[in-house]
Each structure stands twice: as C-alpha cells, then as structure tokens.
C-alpha cells in the first residue's frame, strides 16, 4: 500500500515535470511574442517593447525563463502580464465564479444519469431504452453553442427571463428573494448545458455496466430463488454495478478548474474558462501556464484518488 502510494506519487511528479516543460515549450516556441500583440498601438515604441521584454524576462534564455516562471509560481509571486495582478488571486476569484456552475452541473449529471441508465438497462430494447439511447446520441452530437442558443431563444422569448451574465444589471437594490431568484435563473442554463454531455455519456455508461451485471450468474440465482425484482436489481445488481462509478469521483476533479470556454463566453459568465480564453487572446503567458499546470495537478491527483477509491471499494484489488 505504502509502496504503491510512494511509487505512484513519484511517477506522477515526473509526469508533472514533463507536462510543465512541454507546456512551456509549446507556448514559448510558437511564433509571435506578447510584446508584439498590438503593433498598431502608437504607445508601443521600440524602447517600450524592449522595456516590456526586460520586465517579463523575455530577453533571457529559455531555460532561465522556465526556472524563473516556476520559482515565481511556487512562491505565489507570479503576476499577470496584462494587469500586473497576482495570477493566483485572479484564478481564485474566477474559480469562485465557476464553482456554482461546476457544482450544479455535476449534481445534475449524477442525479439524472443513474435513474435513466438503470431503467433503460432493466427494460432493455424497450421503447424507453430505445428513446433514451437516441436522445443521448442526440445530446452528444449537438454542438454546445447551438444548443445554448436554442435554450436562450426559448427562455428569453417564452419566459421573458434575462439569462446572460451572472446577474441582471441594476438588481442590487431589489429584495433579497428577487436577487436570489435572479441568480438562480442565470445559473440554470449554463449549468444545464454543462451537464447535457455528461448526462448522455454517463447514462450510457451506467446502462452498459448494469447490463453486464444483470447477465451474471448470481443475479440469475437471486431471481431464481424468487426474490422480488426490486431487490434483485437494486440490492444485488446495483451495488456491484456502482463500483466503477465510485472511482469516477476522482476523475471529475479536473472539471473544477476547466470551465467550458464556449458556454462561458456565450453567457458572459466571468469564470475560469473565459479567463483562459482572454488570456489566450492577450498572450498572457503566466495565466495560461498556471491554469495548465493546475489542471495537470488536478488530473494527476484525480487518477491517484480514483486508484485509492477503487482499492477501498473493491476488496479484490490489492495494490
């Protein structure tokens, strides 16, 4: 157990190091420099550009830049090139904005996909199964931005509720309840959109898992000894079918910092995804690299957690 833990942590640290090198190289070897982002701006005189290059260490060799960047990152002193604000503070602020979307989206995904998946597995090839199968393919295939506009048209023209942004402008002196409901309304569409793909994929996965378990001998035994079908499905089969999903708790961790670029830009939601998008547009290398690094950390931590969870739930696995 301890050897497994230490071995995988070392392995993950090595992976993380390579990720940091690769992402640094991708960003810095691409053509164009942040100092040339706006060549038509009259303020960008050659002296100014030179001063900026010096300020941001762009005149140093690449490996020195790499070391300086990660030194700053780990000491928390890293600042954005666009507004000189600390990157970690900016990310934290945007993270708090994205968090409600993530929580509601995840809750929607997990509460919808299990009942749907289990029911379509039990009634295999029935009308319910066929229609949910088709519906989930439809949801996987629909472009997120198109679906977003469909929902916006529907909600705005039929329900007359404003949905863009995090809250309606000028609501600050409304009653607490009205403000709360306003926030909820703004939250519904983006988190629903974030959940659609997840529901479609996860419910298919639940269905497959459940079908596999239902075909097992011990389920047939349970049914043969005359147990009511609810007990067979929900007590005997479901518990084993749930095993792989426990491990998925670890894998949703990277979603914390992901945030959907497209959905957040459509809804003008000031979250992580939009910040990343703006950073890319403005060639704000510290922000891009920090987000990338944090995502990599979360991905690696997520796989580690899911391995550990698997060990906890499934006694057959000894690592």
């Amino acid at each position, binding site marked *: 157990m301890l050897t497994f833990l230490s071995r995988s942590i070392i392995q993950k640290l*090595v*992976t*993380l190091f*390579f*990720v940091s090198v*690769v*992402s640094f190289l*991708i*960003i810095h*070897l*691409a*053509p*164009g420099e942040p100092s040339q982002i706006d060549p038509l701006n009259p303020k960008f005189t050659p002296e100014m550009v030179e001063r900026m290059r010096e300020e941001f260490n762009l005149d140093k*060799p*690449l490996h020195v830049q790499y070391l300086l960047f990660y030194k700053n990152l780990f000491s928390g002193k890293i600042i954005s090139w666009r507004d000189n604000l600390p990157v970690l503070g900016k990310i934290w602020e945007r993270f708090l904005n994205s968090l409600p979307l993530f929580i509601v989206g995840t809750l929607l995904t997990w509460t919808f996909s299990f009942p749907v998946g289990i029911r379509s597995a039990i009634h295999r090839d029935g009308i319910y199964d066929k229609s949910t*199968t*088709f519906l989930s*393919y*439809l949801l*996987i*295939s*629909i*472009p*997120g*931005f*198109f679906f977003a*506009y*469909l929902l*916006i*048209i529907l909600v705005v*023209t039929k329900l007359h509720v404003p949905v863009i942004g995090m809250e309606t402008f000028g609501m600050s002196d409304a009653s607490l309840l009205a403000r709360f409901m306003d926030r909820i309304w703004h939250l519904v569409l983006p988190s629903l959109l974030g959940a659609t793909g997840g529901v479609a994929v996860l419910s298919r996965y639940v269905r497959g898992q459940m079908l596999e378990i239902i075909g097992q001998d011990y389920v047939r035994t349970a049914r043969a000894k005359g147990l009511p079908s609810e007990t067979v499905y929900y007590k005997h089969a479901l518990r084993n079918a749930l095993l792989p999903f426990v491990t998925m708790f670890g894998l949703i961790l*990277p979603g914390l910092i*992901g945030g959907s*670029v*497209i959905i957040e*830009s459509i809804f003008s939601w000031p979250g992580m995804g939009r910040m*990343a*998008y703006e950073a*890319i*547009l403005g*060639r704000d290398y510290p922000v*891009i690299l920090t*987000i*990338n690094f944090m*995502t*990599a950390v979360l*991905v*690696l931590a997520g796989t580690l957690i899911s391995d550990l969870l698997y060990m906890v739930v499934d006694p057959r696995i000894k690592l």
Partner: protein
Amino acid sequence: MSDISETRNQAKRIGGEAFMPPSRSPWQETWFQLRKNRMALTGLVIFIFFFVIAVTGLFVTGGSDPILDPARVRLPEKLRPPLSSPKTDTLRPEELPALGIYLLGTDDLGRDVFARMLQGAWVSLTVGFVAVGIAVGIGILLGGIAGYYGRFSLQLGHLLVGVLVFSASVFAIYGWLWPAALLLFFITIVFVSSHKRLRHPSPSSRSLRWLMLPTLQVDTLIMRAVDIMLCFPSFFLILTVVALLPPSIYNIMVIIGLTSWMGTTRFVRAEFLSLREMDFVAAARALGISDTRIIFRYIMPNAVAPVLVSATLGIASAMLTEAGLSFLGFGVPPPHATWGNILSDGKAYIFDAPWLTFAPGIVILIVVLAFNLFGEGMRDILNPKLRERN
C-alpha cells in the same frame, strides 16, 4: 452451389440435427448485422449523402467562376429569409443566385447561405478525416510499437543519442547554428561507426559496452508520453496552439490530430498485447515469418476493426471541435465559410434571422449524429459478445 448443399445434407444426415454454419464471409456477416441495426444504417446513409454533398459542394462553389458563389456580396438583399426569391430589379444578372431562390436565405452581407453551407461541408469533412487520420496514424504506430516491441529496453546509447539530438535542436532554436550542425555531425559519426561494432561486439569494443546498458522499456516510454498528453485539457490546448499559430485550415487539422491520438494508442497497444500471445501468431513466428509481415498481415487485420470504429467516433468529435473553434473565431480564416463561422456570424441576428443559427446548427447536429450512430452501431456489430443470439 449444388455440392455445398449436398455436403450440408450429408452433414445433416451424419450429425442428426447438426447444421453447417452459414456460409457468409465476414463482410457479408457485417452487412447482414448492419441491415438489422436501423439506427446505424440510417447513420451510414446520411454519411454517404453528406459525403456526396460535400464533394459536389467543392466543385460547385470552388474555382474562379463558381456556379454558386459563396462570397458574392449583395448588400440590398441582406437577411432575406429562406426560400425567398431575389428582387430581380435591383440585382445585376450575374448577381442572381443560380438556383433562382435563396434556398437557406441570405446573411448580413447578402451572401447566399446555401452556397456557404455547401462550401463549409467540404471543410468539415476534410477537417474530420485528416485530423482523425493523423491521430489514428500516430496511434497505430505508437500503440503497435508499444504493444509488439514494448518489452525491448532502450539502451543507454539510444538515450544518449536522444539527448544529443534534443540539445542539437535546442541549439538550432537559439540560433546557434554552428554548434547544432557540429553536434548533428558528431551524432551521425558516432551512430555509423558504433552501430556495426555494437551489433557484433569484438574484444576491442569492450570499452563501448556501457552504451548497451538497458535503461527504460519502450512500452514505459510511450505510455508515459500518453500520460503526459492526457494531462493537458484538450480543448484548451487546441485553443492555445491555434491562437498562437497563424490562422489556417491545415493548422487546425494537424493540431486536432496531434492532440487526440492517446486513446487510439492505448487501444492498439492493448489489442497488440493480447494478439501477440495468440497461437496463430506463435505459429507464424515458428514458421520464421518476419516481424513486419506478422504485424501487418497477422495482427493488424484483427486489431483494425475496433480502431476504425473509434475513428468514426473521432471524426464526429473532430468536427464538433472545428465548429467550436470557428465559433470562437479561431477557425478557418474569414472569407472561407465553415459551419462554425456561419453560426458565429449569425449569432448577432439570432432573433431577426434565426436561419443563420439554425441552418448550420441543425446540419452539424445531423452529420455528427450520423457519425456517432454509425460508429456505435458498428461497435455493437463487431463485438460478438453483445450480439443477440438467434
């Protein structure tokens, strides 16, 4: 035919109820199963239809004097709804749409949306196929190497050469061309001179033995590379690279391809690992058949069907990625129409001209859905465990 049925009758007579297996080739069997799976069949039909449309679209809208000009601006005719006929009095005769009506309306510059959609079909098709082609190519290569040659250890010499090549390229990047060239020269010299001697070590080359120390398995190396690539958030990575590089359709294809090979690699590796231990491969090896032939004639045909299925699904997601990039304004550069940027341009007129949103949106939905249905259907068909017993 007659002798087959005779044999069959003989078999019946001998074995009582024993039947001969149906005499169908694998292709016929697949086709037979596909016809029973109506959703997959619909997907295939739509896919073929889309393919034909995209190819005709290339010919109809391409060239210097296209029949349907997707770039023709007709400012008096802007935002006309679908199926409306052009006002003949304000337009010059060469500005009239070839079909006589605007089948899908016009956009904010009076361009024919139908012609633009036709032009975009080819973009979506090529982006999907080229990107997935690159991804599957890398995946099969790396996965095959990891699966078949995975147990080989890289020797210290190999790593050394790798480090030298890497430092040479770093020198080249810094613009120090002389050291880079010198290093490369050195590498070639070492490589050429040591290769023969390492293969057949003579007592005199004892001193070079340390170069052959085993260090790292090929399998480990490739799989760690996969792990590293999986750490990147894929859409964010694609967006970053696309934004940094000059806008071009080829960049997008290559980048989507280079960031989506990990699944195929893992998959092919697993297939190769299990197939390598099969008896028919052992038999082939015992017959002295070369590795290349074993890989390409014995293992690959058995591993390729599931890979093609995941490639079909990959095309669907590559198309969605391209549409998403175009929507964000990073896609194919403007005068060229793609489904993503038609929708992106139309979003400002979402309430006045909803066809600008709906036409590309619904078409993307249908085409991606067709690929998904066909791919998933083929996955069920090719997996005998899931097949219904009859």
